[in-house]
């Protein structure tokens, strides 16, 4: 959804996503989603060992077509429920332009624009 004609989205700093499922649960509860339905879902890769001996274990929450960026909450002045409850504090909501600036600060981030 856009506000003041601005496109909004979610930035995820997936370097520190622990895969704790809080975003998935928050979305299910907020949107009363039934078994098998997800407004956001964590994709996992790993753990894998790299040639240099270090490990890689990536979690990335991906919003689905059921995500409306918590329009009602945002209109009340709250954060989207997934963003607020993210235990690792790696999710950010805002205008895509601002998120893009934030994205340039460090690697291992991604922006989603579900609506």
């Amino acid at each position, binding site marked *: 959804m856009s*506000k003041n004609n601005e496109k909004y989205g979610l930035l995820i*700093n997936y370097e*520190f996503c*622990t*895969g*704790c*499922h*809080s975003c*998935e*649960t*928050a979305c*299910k*509860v907020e949107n009363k989603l039934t*078994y*098998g339905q997800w407004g956001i879902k964590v994709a996992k890769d*790993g*753990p894998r*060992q790299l040639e240099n001996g270090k*490990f*890689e*274990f990536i*979690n990335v929450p991906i919003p689905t077509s059921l995500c409306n960026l918590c329009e009602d909450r*945002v209109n*009340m*002045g*709250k*954060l989207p*429920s997934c963003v*607020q*409850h*993210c*235990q*690792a*504090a*790696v999710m950010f*909501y*805002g*205008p895509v332009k*601002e998120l893009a600036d934030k994205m340039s600060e460090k690697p291992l981030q991604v922006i989603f624009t579900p609506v």
Partner: protein
Amino acid sequence: MSKVLDYHEKHKNDWRWQEGDVTATRTTMWTGPGCHNGCGIVYYTKDNKVVGIEGDVNNPVNQGRLCMRCINYLESTNHPDRLKWPLKRVGERGENKWERISWDEAYDIIVKNVRDIQKNYGPESIVAMEGTGRNIVWQVNYLCYSAFQSPNFTLGFLSGDSCYMPRAAVEGVTNGDFFLVDCSQQFEDRYENPEWRAPEYIMIWGSNPLAANADGFFGHWITDLMQRGSKLIVTDPKLTWLATKADYWLRIRPGSDAALAMAFLNIVISEDLYDHDFVEKWTNGFNEVAERVKEWTPERAAAVCWVDKDALVAAARAFAKAECAAIHWGVAVDMAVTGVSTAQSLNSLVAITGNMDVPGGNILVQYAYGQGLAYNYGFENVPQDVAPKRLGNEYPLRQMGFGANAHEDAVLEAMESGKPYPIKMLWLQTTNPIANMAGEAPRVYAAMKKVDFCVVVDLYMTPSAVAFADIVLPAAMSSERWGNRNWYTPLRTITKVAEYYEAKSDEDIILELGKRLQPEFFPWKDNKDWYDWIMLNEATESGMTFDELQEKVYSFPKFEYRKYEKGLLRPDGDPGFNTVTGKLELKIELYEMWGLDPLPWYEEPRESPYSTPELFEEYPFVMTTGNRSYEFFHSEHRQLKLNREFHPDPIMDINADSAAKLGIKEGDWVWIENRKGRFKQRARLDQFMDPRVIRAEHGWWFPEKEAAEPSLFGVFDSNCNNLTSMCDNGPTGYGAPYKNQIAKVYKCTEENSEIMPSTQVTRLGGFPYVKK
């Protein structure tokens, strides 16, 4: 972005407000359903029911964040399986046949039984138990001591008190205070506090704090610190997410922690990486410790602990050379016979590297505002001639007050033998021992069946209630009770915002029963009145009443670093630590007085690849248990559809090559067996586990299955405690090998699955070993 968060800014100083016909209340969750944290939440209520819940953005503890168990609180609190009113057993134990009774009738039955047992056997024949404790950590013991007049308050057959108490007892005699990683949790302005800094290294030992949130420690503070530059050392048999992010992962053999911890000390001391100034000024017994740990060379520790030698040496150097570093330890420390020794060494490592009570190190914490009620609260109300009869009183740490509760293993032995006296009544509040806490669960089941009278106070009908209870009382959940949280800071209130049928708060049940039994010890009008009294008499440094604190939501006492320099730790106000020597006791003088080894030591687990090599050929895996999940708190949350969608079945981890050799594929159901019994879980193949180690989940029962025996909610079918032990403790009485049994693994087939463990235990007298 500015519009977002307006809501939270607007309500920053409100503790309660109205949104149409919905009331919002900022308070603390603690608990049930279970957890050991105490996060700030906002309840939304209507007509005495919770209709919404979310994290409190304005609470510095969790800063708006929550784990899935709180986010899904509505499913827990409104679940149709919740106990709604008192029940009296009408069938045989285990038949799950009940009759609804009134609270008065329930209390009358309990009072009559208590009086009869007190008269015929003595009050010591009554044992009161708690498990994780919901929000009550000093109330069940108060009931036991003050109302039942028995000294036998204890935990639900937690062998060797193996959860935090070994560490706490060690810290009691070495520092006089507990330590925590400095995550700025002691400051209201948190990461902005100018005195605070992030540890350069955090060593995480035997814990997955992200899922565990143990002992008032919000696990994801660790990721906050990682985002602020902290690096990790992780000691864990499993490559957890945190371990993948660590500079050093030490894949320890479960049960060998005490040896590895001594090797850390040895490397730091022999390479002269310790803080000479701190050691000289503030510690006791350094030279003796240095001498003792010499034998734990990196080579020897690597061989015994199955860790990489180079990683061990590098990790020890990194920890010692860091400007500030801290240890976060978990229950794996406690869950070995050598638990107290591991705790002593790790505590000493923090001390000699100069990281005790400094910014970015391990801070020494106390209960906020001096509100220090614990397991000894009310013990003075036990009659003087009865108090020394406390089971396990022969252990000096207990006798001297470093641990107040009776010894669980001694309680079990008394139940089995009738010696030194018989146990006639069990009061189980917040504990479901056969599902979760009890080692050797089938043995405990047999012993509990013999007890004459048993009361269970819980949220749901549990396997332990079905198997043993004569009376079942419904407990309130967090939104339905008044309370406080002080473990450790800030001091927080829990506000009652809802009602559920006839459920009562644990404290109200204790008060109402206490008033009928020994009214002189229960002068408080109700639950809230009791907390007000606590605020005015125990948390006096706050200068607040309960209502005043409730409106503030939380309150941080002033915190100071390096309290030992400032005379803030000892009652006499002198600098130093609150110990017998006034120093931090690397060598524990009290142990020496009591005839215990005052220095760290190592002993192989009593069944292990090295202590029983022939047995290890038959049972070729070391099994660790008890790893935490995001979905569940111990045996709780299994009713919840949402949580089970994430985690439908019990899971064991096994090295992929070891599994292939046994013909086991991902997701196969497998039996895990040793001489004591067997249980089944689903295999998850793991490339990075040691091929000789397996890891099984705990706390599994299946609320969706038949409650009555022989099924008993399937409580023994997937129960890792069919394989653990009771009465196998260290010389202090603390520690038990929950995390280091040996076992074999084989695939479940139709032929080998004819008799399920629940039937074996409830109908066939248990596994042969137990029958012996």
